[in-house]
């Protein structure tokens, strides 16, 4: 294998699994250390800069960081990264003085369509730079799906108000209550660039017999949730069937339990394990006495005297062809009828762009999605950019934020006359953590604690109101303990071959058998010949050559605890623990080449 190039940001960024997996690349270990130190405001600001909505995301994020967390590979459960974010948000002090200083207006005008997380991120990034950002939304309050879709018992409205407020304080012109009905009309105005962040605002319906007749009691999930959020709906029938297996279905069933639903069931076509909903959301639903029935395909809504009486399901079983593709085949068992008073249909969302004229210069694909570059977020009309669910279909908040940052960089470069394809590299700082002979500026002692559970409101109280928050969040002590589980993966083991005397001290002390000194060979062979076989191919092997014996140092990054014992036991300082802080470049002078 070739020696690893550790000079650029890429290699070590990948070692920080959580940050690498995060669409916005939030420097997770950095803020977790701040939480452990009780510096909640600093932890919050690291988040705020990167993901814009720490309080919201600390309750609702889809947490791509957690399955990636190294702790999950060395023991059962990853660090509760998402809930630690909330600890920062809950305990921070006043951040007003830490918000960006506003530059004088630069004469450029940007329109953002929709006031959801993507648009607000664009506004957050560009407004302080002097851009006049106009944010349009049909609703009276900003927040988009954050406000309309996520039930209050998961996300209190004060949190939304606070974090949306930090952005509106930066001076964007909030044109709320103004729905954009025509892109052409918007293009005709004097905007220098337009960002479309209008979400995926249409819930998919289910067209089976009886749909029309039972219409009064059949609701499209996302619309129903929005109506609940706005207070238009306050009640639901006692027996409720929720169709669909995504997170919207989970929100629907749990909301129904709080609006009078006593016998609420979730019914999914596929298997329980294949459901799109996050595992923890399924757990929360089941905890609230909501059974999830699987392998049932809705066939018909039954009705009597013009009123819905239930749903008929066909029983199916999964069948795999020789290519491993799954199909659902009827088992031949008799159909199952589930009686109910209301049905909530949460079987997916579609994008709809009725307001974009097809001759506005935006190309659409055969599924009605705009042609958008995943790198630049630019559409086929160079001054129109997309982000969030509007760009590539329904994802989640953290992706919308990442899109917003990317689009803001593109807009800044586009309006500076630069090539939007030329993306700015992240800022990287590498600092040795050595303080003394065996002292490091991070806590390298590994906590053996298992993942802590977030305290929850008592079920009887939680189910009484749709606005009683279920999760109470970690208190500072629990937050500290959970924070101590972080392995500090951003504190890298950096090796210098010229000073190594090959004494094997690091090999002997490494608790995870990560380090091997051996003869060089191909990666495929080498992976099997290390002190512990390196079978996780998604994790790199760090190779250094130039040793006196002609061997190489090979370190499997997979389960390294970053405990620094290799560096403590090294007599010559060939190993050092260096913190690599990777800071994604956002819009601003740093993202431009001139």
């Amino acid at each position, binding site marked *: 294998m070739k020696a690893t190039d550790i000079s650029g940001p890429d290699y070590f960024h990948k070692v920080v699994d959580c940050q690498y997996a995060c669409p916005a690349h939030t420097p997770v270990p950095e803020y977790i250390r701040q939480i452990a130190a009780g510096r909640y405001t600093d932890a919050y600001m690291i988040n705020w800069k990167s993901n814009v909505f720490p309080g919201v995301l600390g309750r609702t994020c889809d947490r791509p960081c957690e399955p990636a967390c190294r702790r999950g590979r060395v023991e059962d459960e990853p660090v509760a990264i998402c809930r630690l974010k909330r600890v920062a948000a809950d305990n921070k002090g006043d951040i007003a003085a830490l918000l960006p200083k506003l530059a004088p207006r630069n004469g450029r005008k940007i329109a953002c369509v929709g006031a959801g997380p993507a648009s607000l991120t664009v506004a957050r990034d560009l407004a302080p730079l002097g851009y006049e950002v106009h944010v349009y939304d049909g609703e009276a309050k900003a927040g988009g799906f954050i406000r309309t879709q996520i039930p209050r018992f998961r996300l209190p409205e004060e949190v939304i108000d606070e974090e949306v407020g930090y952005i509106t304080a930066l001076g964007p012109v909030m044109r709320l209550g103004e729905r954009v009905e025509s892109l052409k009309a918007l293009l005709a105005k004097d905007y220098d660039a337009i960002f479309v962040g209008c979400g995926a605002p249409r819930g998919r319906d289910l067209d089976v017999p009886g749909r029309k007749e039972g219409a009064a009691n059949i609701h499209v999930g996302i619309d129903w949730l929005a109506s609940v959020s706005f207070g238009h709906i306050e009640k639901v029938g006692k027996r409720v069937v929720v169709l669909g297996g995504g997170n919207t279905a989970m929100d629907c069933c749990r909301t129904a339990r709080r609006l009078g639903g006593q016998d609420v069931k979730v019914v999914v076509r596929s298997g329980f394990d294949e459901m799109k909903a996050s595992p923890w959301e399924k757990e929360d639903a089941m905890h609230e006495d909501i059974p999830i029935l699987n392998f049932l395909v809705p066939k018909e809504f039954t009705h009597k005297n013009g009123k819905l009486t239930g749903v008929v399901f066909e029983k199916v079983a999964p069948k795999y062809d020789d290519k491993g593709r799954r199909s659902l085949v009827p088992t031949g068992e008799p159909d199952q009828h589930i009686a109910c008073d209301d049905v909530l249909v949460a079987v997916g969302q579609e994008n709809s762009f009725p307001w974009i004229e097809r001759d506005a210069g935006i190309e659409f694909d055969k599924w009605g999605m705009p042609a958008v570059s995943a790198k630049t977020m630019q559409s086929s009309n160079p001054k129109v950019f997309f982000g969030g669910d509007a760009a590539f279909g329904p994802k989640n908040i953290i992706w919308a934020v990442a899109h917003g940052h990317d689009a803001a960089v593109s807009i800044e470069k586009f309006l500076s006359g630069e090539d939007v394809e030329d993306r700015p590299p992240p800022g990287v700082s590498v600092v040795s953590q050595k303080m003394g002979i065996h002292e490091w500026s991070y806590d390298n002692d590994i906590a053996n604690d298992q993942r802590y559970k977030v305290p929850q409101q008592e079920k009887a109280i939680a189910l009484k109101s749709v606005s009683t928050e279920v999760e109470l969040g970690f208190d500072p002590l629990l937050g500290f303990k959970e924070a101590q589980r972080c392995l500090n993966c951003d504190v890298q083991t950096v090796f210098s071959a010229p000073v190594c005397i090959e*004494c094997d001290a690091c090999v002997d002390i490494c608790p995870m058998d990560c380090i091997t000194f051996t003869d060089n060979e191909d990666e495929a062979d080498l992976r099997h010949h290390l002190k*512990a076989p390196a079978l996780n191919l998604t994790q790199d092997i760090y190779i250094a050559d130039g040793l006196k014996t002609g061997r190489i140092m090979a370190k499997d990054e997979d389960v390294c605890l970053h405990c620094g014992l290799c560096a403590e036991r090294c007599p010559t300082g060939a190993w050092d623990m260096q913190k690599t802080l990777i800071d994604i470049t956002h819009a601003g002078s740093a993202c431009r080449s001139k």
Partner: protein
Amino acid sequence: MTYILKPKMHHPELPANARGFTRRDYEGRVSTLCAGCGHDSISAAIVQAAFELDIEPHRLAKMSGIGCSSKTPDYFLGQSHGFNSVHGRMPSVLTGANLANRDLIYLGVSGDGDSASIGLGQFAHSIRRGVNMCYIVENNGVYGLTKGQFSATSDKGSKSKKGVENTESGIDLVALALQLGATYVGRSFSGDKAQLVPLIKGALSHHGPAVLDVVSPCVAFNNHAGSTKSFDYVREHNDAVNRLDVILGRAPITADYAPGTVTEVIQHDGSTLRLRKLEESYDATNRIGAMNYLQERHAAGEIVTGLLFVDPDATDLHDRLGTMERPLNTLGTKDLTPGAAALAKINEGLR
């Protein structure tokens, strides 16, 4: 030393041996020796060897004297028996323990000061008596605890860290052991675990006095140019005569070696020592040949390593004294006071 303990977490794929223990279960407390000390590598090799031999920790007793090397039994086999004796007296304590309980595996750990200076007599007599033991000398050629004076194994002409030349002759513990009748003699290097681990395994399973002289660089006081026990010097002058594999009786021969290059020695306990020759003329079962070869190579400035001598038909102190086969702690009142009839019989024999 380090300020934190070695984390309990281990590699998710860490294998277990026939006793259900992982290698980590054979570790001891965290080392307090200088970072990079060769002794720590030897400790790691002992851990590995005990793991591979499926040793039940409570069936092993580790004995030591005084010195950096003699501290190390604290850092491995934390669940085994141990005795940290006075300076140079480990061999006597080990001999006594062995006589009292012949069922345990005895691992003596010592250093060049403990064995070649103050304890040289004890070293010599335990070997010539044929005590069944694995005697490891962690040999760094320097008094590290007292900051770097030459030890009795420092080679004549080697230089101290300050540049002073050693004018006295060094004791070659391997040559001594051969002359005194050790039945398993090896030399190795702390920086070569591939060689060291099998040598320790062979020594632990050997029936008779097994002596391993392990060159172990002192990173603090004896790892400089001019030292003959530095990492660089040993790597440059290492003349390995063979490579050893220890097979626990159940593994079949898989590698295909050219005839004459592999010899197999079946030990008393059924284990097989498979020796692959690196030096064609070297015969590890010829004591006199070994002594001659060692002297020649030593004169040429080379350090001969490998399994230098093994006697497959070795006997030990118990065999020679005809002691009873059971450990003394299993003898009950009935065994120890056989009664008047037995006494009369003994008295009769003495008339």
